[in-house]
């Protein structure tokens, strides 16, 4: 248990935070990678999912992609990409791996969110003369918002986790603190680095959960319904996450 006290000392020492191998630099790399890869993944996955969900096509693909994503070890993909010819291009293998694992939750959740919009609502919107595009943006998108955000949050946490592993084949980020700790047999640095990684993941989870709640365009309408669901015990969301 001595390692925990030493880890605390390490975390609270100014010297651990400065320099090229310092915490600030590694944290910066980690956050930068996360933001860039989340943006790329959203741009790639969300339009596809929204259009497929609107057309109610391609469900098998959208659902199975998540299952495939779960079966493939992230560590293996990271190493395979680094050993591939792409490995020569600096950060690119890491970026590709992060995007690959962020796309399935984005695609699946957004697709399911869109298809779960009540068909009667869509039909009545069509009855009022709205075009397909208008229905997608003004009716389906607001209704699907919570599940789309679940996908974004899941993808963000996934990217933080995968970016940590990217340190094993030599990428940057907070994972480097852990791998360096292992290499030098400094258990306190392994533990300290792990605390920082866990804290970052939990922070990202909390920020996106908050954003989903505050940004929900139907926040006030939904509140009364949510109570109803909770009184039955668990909301459906618990099973999906």
């Amino acid at each position, binding site marked *: 248990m001595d390692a925990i006290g030493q880890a605390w000392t390490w975390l609270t020492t100014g010297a651990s935070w400065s320099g090229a191998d310092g915490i600030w630099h590694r944290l910066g790399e980690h956050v930068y990678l996360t933001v860039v890869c989340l943006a790329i993944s959203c741009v790639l996955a969300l339009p596809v999912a929204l259009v497929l969900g609107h057309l109610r096509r391609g469900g098998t693909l959208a659902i199975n992609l998540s299952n495939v*994503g779960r079966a493939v070890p992230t*560590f293996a993909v990271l190493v395979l990409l680094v*050993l591939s010819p792409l490995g020569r291009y600096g950060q690119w293998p890491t970026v590709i791996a992060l995007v690959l694992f962020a796309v399935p939750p984005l695609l699946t959740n957004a697709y399911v969110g869109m298809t779960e919009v009540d068909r009667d609502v869509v039909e009545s919107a069509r009855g009022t003369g709205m075009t397909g595009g208008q229905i997608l943006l003004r009716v389906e998108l607001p209704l699907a918002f919570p599940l789309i955000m679940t996908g974004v949050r899941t993808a963000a946490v996934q990217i933080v986790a995968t970016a940590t592993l990217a340190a094993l084949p030599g990428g940057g980020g907070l994972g480097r603190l*852990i791998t360096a700790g292992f290499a030098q047999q400094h258990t306190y640095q392994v533990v300290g680095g792990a605390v920082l990684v866990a804290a970052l*993941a939990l922070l990202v*989870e909390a920020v996106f959960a908050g954003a989903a709640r505050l940004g929900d365009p139907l926040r006030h309408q939904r509140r009364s319904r949510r109570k109803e669901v909770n009184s039955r015990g668990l909301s459906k969301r618990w099973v999906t996450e």
Partner: protein
Amino acid sequence: MAADNCLVANDWICGEYVRTRAHDLTAATLQHLWITGVSVALALVVAFPLALVARRWKPVAGPVLGFTTVLYTIPSLAMYSLLLPVFGISASVVVTGLVLYSLTILVRNILAGLQAVPEDAREAARGMGYGPLRLLLRVELPLALPTVMAGLRIATVSAISLTTVGAIVGYGGLGNLIYDGMNTLFKAEVLTASAICVALAIAADLLLLGVQRLLTPWTRTRRTARSARPSRARTGEAAA
């Protein structure tokens, strides 16, 4: 000597590698299987009482689910690292980490499965004189089984994938080979180990699906009617 050349040329696919290192591959696969198997089995043993407690005492449900969600959010490399001072360099680090991850999925699905049991079915059983234990074992669990098995499949497939990261403490099963191949730039070793790992995940998933079909023959006819629509329970997430 064409066969030897693929080792020298460091090809991705190399039959000679599989032949000469068959022993390593078998040992790594066996380690992978026992680490995953023990972890998921332990998680199942712990998850059932937790789910029952959370169902019996409503105020407990929130904190239990919240705590398991927090555990699930922690990235695997950090999880194993945090367990390092507790267990030292040992298989317990990986097994404990995997148990904690699997718990999240299993507790949620067991709880959801039990809560989805129709009240009518419970009433009918009580009317027939079933006590609480018999009600649970004979009525509620069988009806909750499809949801529980869906959770078990997700937990198992995730655990097989996350075991690889255990290579950081030397107990990663096939992950050890990937780790070694990464350090020695040995392409065939990395690709072969990765492929076996994915094959294990698919095989385990299909095996559990088969077990589920055998255990719940009554769902088969309904399932074909429902499968046109994607089920929400399958859109789970994975930690890396």
